[in-house]
């Protein structure tokens, strides 16, 4: 039951913030989000399914006749993403103290509501519950952008909302279709994700799987965002307030990749094998396309926004390599990107608070004015570039090596990609160095350039360089970047089991090409299917569903 606290505490906190005296709102919010973080750490330390399978199951009957239950569970991947979310939130709140000066209560309340929704997405076991949380993340984000954003905020907010909402409507249609098919064949409704997954993997014809794949992709690809449905992101990122950008890059984009991991890969494996090359090509085009666009940006925030498109391409490429290297690399990528790109957005925000511009033509040589800021800037840029020893390297490298090794003759995990995919995606490594170092070269180094003096310090009471509070926001991220660069195996060991489960059906499936047959999928762990006859809320709380043994 404790896991529910991760949802309820932020929600209660949001209410508390709304009721608190206006000067206290931010401290209340900080306290609540810190408490949530500590709760999630405690939960992670007691989490029973690090080795594989699902843990912290909890069900509450809701619409029993319709098969809907309020139920949650988590595998190690969701657990890690929950930790990322709960870690970023207090930092976002701490980072907003000086940048948000109007309508504070509302702001912090929306942030906490957003946190609850995001945690809900990662923990949901019931499909409708998942979907409600998935869509509900849009509402707080909409207001965060529309109220607290930059000049073009209303257009950005609307575009963000409608674009992602439209995509997810189609995803919903796909998911509802699967549930409908389940009822048609099994005779009762179920919205239990493991049951539906197991059913869809074997019960849908290859043609049906193809349709479902594209329906799911419509929503998740927009969220990731995958080329060519990425154009909402630069606008939303640029206009969002700092904390909004951090959450957007750090967590909301991961809802897309998490959706790919949780639904697309296990639910429609036959279609995945068929279309993985297409998705991989889109990822690679995205990597290079966005990287080249980054190169010519003048707005630093926009540059980092586009770099997210480029980076997430590696993440998706890793997933669709269909081997554990790629799976683990990709999940690690989700976390690492959250840390380093999140930190970069923080840094841009801190600079913006001082200079009120993000235009590289107006800024230069900040290393002499803001040495501490510059240190962190260079540090996180290097992490983002993928310098070995820092976190970004391990995940990027694994995604590439996975794509490389995903040729049909590879053993024990044959795939449908191959060396050429990695070779082209690898060009992204060079481009990333180009655009990020050019940015650093202009802004951090070089001759000192600052916007007009009356801008500088006029609007803010901040000192020239970072304050202890701001350093406090960045240090945890920096420490994690080093730690995960040196000790990635700590995380990779935990996700090994879950990812092996998710990919279990693929080797046989790929072997059976060019006519991938459903028989091949039958090797998938299908304990969940057996239990799916009964509405899932009848399952005893805490009982593990989904294969955690005998499915290697």
């Amino acid at each position, binding site marked *: 039951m404790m896991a529910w606290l991760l949802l309820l505490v932020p929600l209660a906190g949001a209410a508390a913030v709304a009721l608190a005296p206006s000067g206290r709102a931010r401290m209340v919010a900080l306290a609540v989000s810190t408490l949530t973080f500590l709760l999630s750490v405690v939960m992670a330390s007691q989490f029973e399914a690090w080795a594989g399978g699902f843990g912290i199951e909890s069900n509450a009957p809701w619409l029993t006749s319709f098969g809907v239950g309020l139920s949650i569970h988590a595998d190690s991947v969701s657990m890690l993403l929950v930790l990322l979310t709960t870690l970023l939130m207090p930092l976002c709140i701490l980072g907003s103290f000086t940048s948000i000066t109007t309508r504070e209560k509302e702001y912090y309340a929306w942030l906490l509501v957003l946190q609850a929704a995001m945690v809900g997405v990662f923990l949901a076991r019931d499909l409708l519950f998942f979907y409600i949380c998935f869509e509900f993340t849009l509402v707080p984000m909409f207001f965060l952008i*529309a109220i607290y954003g930059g000049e073009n905020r209303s257009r950005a*907010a609307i575009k963000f909302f409608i674009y992602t909402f439209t995509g997810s409507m189609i995803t919903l249609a796909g998911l509802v279709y699967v549930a409908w098919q389940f009822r048609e064949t099994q005779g009762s409704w179920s919205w239990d994700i493991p049951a539906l997954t197991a059913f869809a993997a074997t019960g849908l014809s290859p043609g*049906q799987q193809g349709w479902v794949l594209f329906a799911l992709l419509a929503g998740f690809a927009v969220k990731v965002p995958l080329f060519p449905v990425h154009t909402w992101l*630069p606008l939303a990122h640029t206009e969002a307030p700092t904390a909004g950008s951090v959450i957007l890059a750090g967590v909301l984009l991961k809802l897309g990749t998490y959706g790919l991991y949780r639904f697309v890969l296990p639910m429609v494996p036959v279609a995945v094998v068929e279309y993985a090359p297409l998705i991989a090509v889109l990822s690679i085009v995205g990597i290079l396309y966005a990287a080249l*666009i980054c190169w010519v940006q003048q707005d630093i925030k926009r540059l980092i926004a586009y770099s997210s498109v480029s980076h997430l391409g590696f993440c998706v490429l890793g997933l669709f390599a269909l081997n*554990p290297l790629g799976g683990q690399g990709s999940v690690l990528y989700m976390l690492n990107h959250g840390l380093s790109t999140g930190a970069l957005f923080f840094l841009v925000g801190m600079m913006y608070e001082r200079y009120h511009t993000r235009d590289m033509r107006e800024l230069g*040589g900040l290393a002499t004015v803001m040495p501490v800021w510059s240190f962190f800037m260079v540090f996180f840029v290097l992490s983002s570039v993928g310098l070995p020893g820092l976190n970004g390297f391990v995940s990027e490298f694994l995604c590439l090596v996975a794509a490389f090794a995903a040729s049909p003759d590879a053993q024990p995990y044959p795939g449908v990609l191959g060396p050429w995919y990695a070779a082209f995606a*690898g060009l992204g490594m060079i481009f990333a160095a180009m655009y990020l170092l050019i940015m650093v070269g202009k802004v951090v*180094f070089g001759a000192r350039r600052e916007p007009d003096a009356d801008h500088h310090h006029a609007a803010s009471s901040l000192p020239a360089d970072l304050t202890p509070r701001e350093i406090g926001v960045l240090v945890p991220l920096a420490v994690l970047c080093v730690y995960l660069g040196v000790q990635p195996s700590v995380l990779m060991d935990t996700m090994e089991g879950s990812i092996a489960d998710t990919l279990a059906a693929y080797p046989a499936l790929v072997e059976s090409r060019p006519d991938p047959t459903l028989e091949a999928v039958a090797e998938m762990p299908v304990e969940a299917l057996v239990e799916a006859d009964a509405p899932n809320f009848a399952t005893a709380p805490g009982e593990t569903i989904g294969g955690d043994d005998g499915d290697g």
Partner: protein
Amino acid sequence: MIAANAQLDLLTLGAHHATAIPIAQPTTEMGWAGWILWLPLISLIACGLCAAFRVRNKLPAWLTVGFLGSSFLVTLGLYFQYTEPVTIELFRWIDLSLGTGTDAAGFTANFSLYVDQLSLLWMLFVTGLGTLIALYASEYMESDVGAGYARFFAGVSVFLFAMSALVLGDNLLMLYLGWEGVGFASYWLIGYYYTRPSAVAAAKKAFIVNRIGDLGLALGLYLIWRTFGTIEYSELFERLGSGHHATQAGGWSVRAIPYLLMLGAFGKSAQLPLFVWLPDAMEGPTPVSALIHAATMVTAGVYLLARMFPFLALDAAAAPTVAWIGALTALVAATIGMAQYDIKRIMAYSTVSQLGYMFLGIGVLTTFGAAYHVFTHAFFKAVLFLTCGAIMHGFAGQLDLRKLSGLRQLPGWRITSYTMLYGCLCLVGFPYVTSGFFSKDAIMAQAFISGSTGLGLIALVTALLTAYYTFRVWFRVCAGPVKYELGDDHHGPDDGEGHGDHGDQHGHGEPHAPRLAINLVLVLITTGAFLAIFLKPWAREMVMGSTARNAEPHSEGHGFWQDPHKWMPVVASITTIVGIAIAWHFHLANRKAADALRSRLLANPATAWLPVAMENKWYFDEIYHGLIRLPLWIVGHALAFLDRYLVDLVIVDGIARVPRWVGRAFQPLQNGILQSYAVSMAGGVGLVALLVLYMPQVIKLLEGWLGGGGGG
């Protein structure tokens, strides 16, 4: 064109490797060797703390010298303890297993050390020279005490850590870690004077050009892993020896391995076509140029190919490719070096050129010659750079050889002048008294045996040019009448403001001669360069005991003129002396003659291009800019434009407008943000409701389509 028998040797070597070389065994006893890496890391942290607490004295330098010196002592200890190749695991880094049972595979790259003679050879001079150059820098960088001083030594520490990881790592991923790490340290230190745009640009260029090579190395690593199932050296060499790749041998994926490794090596070691970053890297402080861009880091490519030497046998044309690239780079860089006026840049081009010799050595199968040349070059090139640095330091940034003359007669400059002379003699390979003579001859002679006459002649011509341009520097700068002009800055102001007065002070004053730290280091390294003569047998033994071992092909005959190893010392000596004589004529005896020759060449339209092209470095930068950077930049702008206007504005917004038109048709009064938001929300909910209500019909419809699609 490698002779057939030579190629055969290489292949045979690959096949019998497992028996020829003791495969490294894991040991748990020598964990203390890890301190070779940890000490520079501690040094980094210490320097970082110094920077954070704004230490305003030379503490960072002494800390760095102390920690790096200790690292050298640990290396020495490891050397004396060494009996057979071992691997030492420090901690788990990346260790993934794939599948279970018979199909099991894995991707293992732990933080472990691979200690054999090759890595020891490299580590000895890397840590040794690193310590000495840090000592030198303690004086050289003194004007930055309290400003960039700690940052500088932190960079040096990072470099030593990364270089040690590169050399000592027991797998290719750790090598890659060090590889990128030294690239980053290089970026850090080239851009040390970060307010100077040229330094920032040079730093960026170095990192990016290196990344191109790094991509090659990464892809090579992937291919090796795919083919051999491991990237740990000990297993890798075992599997190569046992023909693990036999089923795929001859396929493109196996034959591509040596070329991809080469790409990495050519990037890091500044060979054609990726050498353009190294001359620009001279923007960094001179100790950095000496340590990183001459003695150690740039030899990483040679180390890579020496370490992975048996893998060159995977494709018959691989070794000749290395040889030709090396020889051509040596020649091209030497021609550019002849026409430069900045003495530090001349040294940079001579480094590129000497690295070319090393690759030529690898390519003609004398790993010993290559490694020995790396070793001797590390010393004498460090001396040359450090003397250039001393001059730059003393003459307020003056590096133009036309504005310096007769230094050896200036009080306080004798040590600099004569250590530089010895460095020059080593570089040109002056007969019998210099280590450069022995190491270069080993390569040039072998080029005639297992290479081709063409390769050998290129090497000889390059030797002639080397003698000329090297002594052009010495005769101009150190010999002749005393005459000098000070430079207009100190060696790079650290920031726009603080050092302006410094520059003035140096601009008009007297040159200040080097003091103890610089002179001591110059003498020590020069001694090292001399003693390296006697280390030839030792170097041979070290290389032959490692994975880089190979039997150098012998010449067919044994007469004097049939065996290049016999006639090369004589021919090379004559070449060298001729080169020095030409330099003496043009740059000491009759300095006007050089200018006269240049103007005569320029006056004749048929030859005017030659000096111009050489002075402009054969336009490599311009060509790359036009062929690669500019088109990419245009594409970038085009894509940014398309993304903003076509993809986003026309397509996305156009589609988005359709429902709005539809909405308008029904609700003409609807406008404003919240309403449209509410409408789209309601519309969405309505859509869901419709979907659920009419699901059976929708399903039927869909199934109609799917029936067609699924059957196909």
